[in-house]
């Protein structure tokens, strides 16, 4: 596809720490177009965060990354750090879960933004300041003239996250990765931030990868969804398709476990027994098999391939859910 911005192919990440080898990401492939919003959904240990950090080169030295991730044709895997620094911010930017810890508490907001602006381009102080004001308005911070001189602790959580977004947008990145960016925010603030991200996407054409454990967020805002489990993509489809025809039992289980307003009080939830798998000792078959109600003997012995079984809809399952089936 000519307008493919990011192409990830068989991305693998493993950590070697204290004698243990942790297989965090085990073959992830997807394609992202310019201006598209992709949600990567999974629980802890699914590999969603690690895979994105791999794109940004933000993994510790104990990590080994293989596979390919090309942004506009430029290969990110294996890129040396000095070159990576040029791409970070300019091509890909990231916003994190806890804005309190990502912002320097001893530096004024404005200074942090101008610093980001001047990190990637030779810009005069005045021009940088003007651009910072522009960015503050862009992220809908009221009274930017005053806020420019404030410190992070003077702002609310939602505002700090907006500042993070402003910093991330400082050099006009083509891709913005939001790693659980709204998890720590109240639901009302979350709605505002998500709305802002949507607006930025349409105005600036920035592609967004939304990493979250919340399927609901994916449903409401993303164009496409990848569901990850044990370091692998297990289902990948446009959002509407995914929610209309869920194939992976794991995705179904995720959906069912989410609290719903429509449920009656004291409803017993459908539960999935067991624990997430041990990433140091992954089984030869499907990683979800021990907990899956639809498991067959084949699931234990051989791993289902991740393939496009229906148009635009990929999954990895030997016994997927059929249309209209309750379980």
């Amino acid at each position, binding site marked *: 596809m000519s307008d493919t911005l990011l192409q990830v192919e068989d991305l693998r990440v493993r950590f070697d720490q204290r004698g243990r080898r942790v297989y965090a990401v085990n073959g992830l492939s997807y394609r992202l177009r310019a201006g598209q919003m992709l949600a990567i959904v999974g629980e*802890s240990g699914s*590999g969603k965060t690690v895979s994105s950090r791999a794109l940004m080169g933000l993994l510790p030295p*104990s990590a080994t990354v293989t596979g390919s991730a090309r942004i506009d044709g430029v290969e990110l895997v294996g890129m040396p750090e000095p070159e990576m620094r040029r791409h970070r911010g300019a091509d890909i930017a990231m916003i994190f879960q806890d804005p309190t810890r990502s912002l320097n508490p001893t530096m004024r907001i404005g200074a942090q933004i101008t610093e980001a602006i001047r990190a990637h381009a030779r810009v005069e102080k005045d021009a940088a300041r003007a651009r910072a004001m522009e960015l503050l308005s862009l992220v809908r911070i009221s009274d930017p003239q005053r806020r420019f001189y404030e410190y992070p602790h003077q702002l609310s959580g939602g505002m700090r996250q907006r500042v993070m977004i402003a910093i991330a947008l400082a050099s006009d990145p083509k891709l913005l990765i939001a790693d659980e960016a709204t998890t720590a925010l109240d639901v009302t603030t979350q709605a505002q931030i998500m709305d802002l991200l949507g607006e930025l996407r349409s105005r600036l054409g920035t592609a967004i990868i939304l990493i979250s454990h919340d399927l609901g967020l994916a449903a409401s805002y993303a164009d496409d969804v990848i569901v990850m489990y044990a*370091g692998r993509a297990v289902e990948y489809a446009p959002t509407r398709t995914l929610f209309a025809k869920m194939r992976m039992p794991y995705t179904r289980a995720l959906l069912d476990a989410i609290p719903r307003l429509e449920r009656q009080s004291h409803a017993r939830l459908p539960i999935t027994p067991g624990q997430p798998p041990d990433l140091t000792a992954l089984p030869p078959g499907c990683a979800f098999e*021990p907990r899956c109600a639809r498991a067959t003997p084949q699931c234990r012995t051989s791993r289902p391939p991740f393939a496009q079984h229906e148009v635009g809809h990929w999954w990895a399952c030997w016994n997927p859910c059929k249309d209209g089936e309750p379980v």
Partner: protein
Amino acid sequence: MAVTEVPASSVLAVDETAPAPARKWLRSLAIGLPAGLLVLIFGACFVLPLVAPIPKPTGGDVLSSSLPPFSPGHLLGTDPNGNDIFSRILYGGRSSLIVAISVNLLGLALGGSLGALSAHFGGAVDTIIMRVLDVFIAFPSLVLTLAVAQSLGPSQRNTIFALAFFSIPAFARISRAATLRLREQPFMVAAKLSGTSTWRILVRHIAPNIGPQLMTFAMLGMGIIMIIEGALSFLGLGIPPPAPSWGNMIAQGQLSLSATPLLVVWPSLALFLTVIGFNQLGEALRARWSGR
């Protein structure tokens, strides 16, 4: 089914700067080596004189003064008074180690308890204890110790007493801070809700959790106390001659530094090795205990 999760994002949070040897035996080595060194030193100072024919550290014969190392009967030679240097190193080590251990034990027991109680009870109790300790901490430590030592006169017991003035408030500070942090933890609230008695909370909840931190501090403190004791003895306020301590040996030796440098070198080396041993052990224990 007991499978423990290894959330991969947690590996991102692991402290990459902590020494993390790949093999378990290497990790044990980090503790084993300094521990072994210290066992050697302790063994030499406390056990060796009992089993080997080591000459007395005092009452030397002037006729055999200033003998060079490897002289017959004198491994490291003798000092200007005719005393065997090796023997003085060993017996001096005994003094220095006894002082350091006593002071740290006092600090750990008294200071640790004081700080924990102060933090646990809070309110007026806390304020009073901390104000009193603040007075001690406010004094430059060496000055305070010197003043006490000076007024009491030099002796091993008085040295311990003087250094305790320095050590107890330090431990109390650490213990109090650690206990305060602990109070925020939900399991402390849960303990209260379970009806656990105050005594039990102190002994079974607070102590095991602040213990490792205090022990580590004690290890590092060994080195500090030994050096201060050395300084005191150097100034003539610690262990009184002719009884040896590494500090007063250095003091005596520096008088003839250019002529007989070895008189200073041996005790300095002994002090250096011991302090390094304690520091490394403390560091290794900290790494091990903070990991789990």
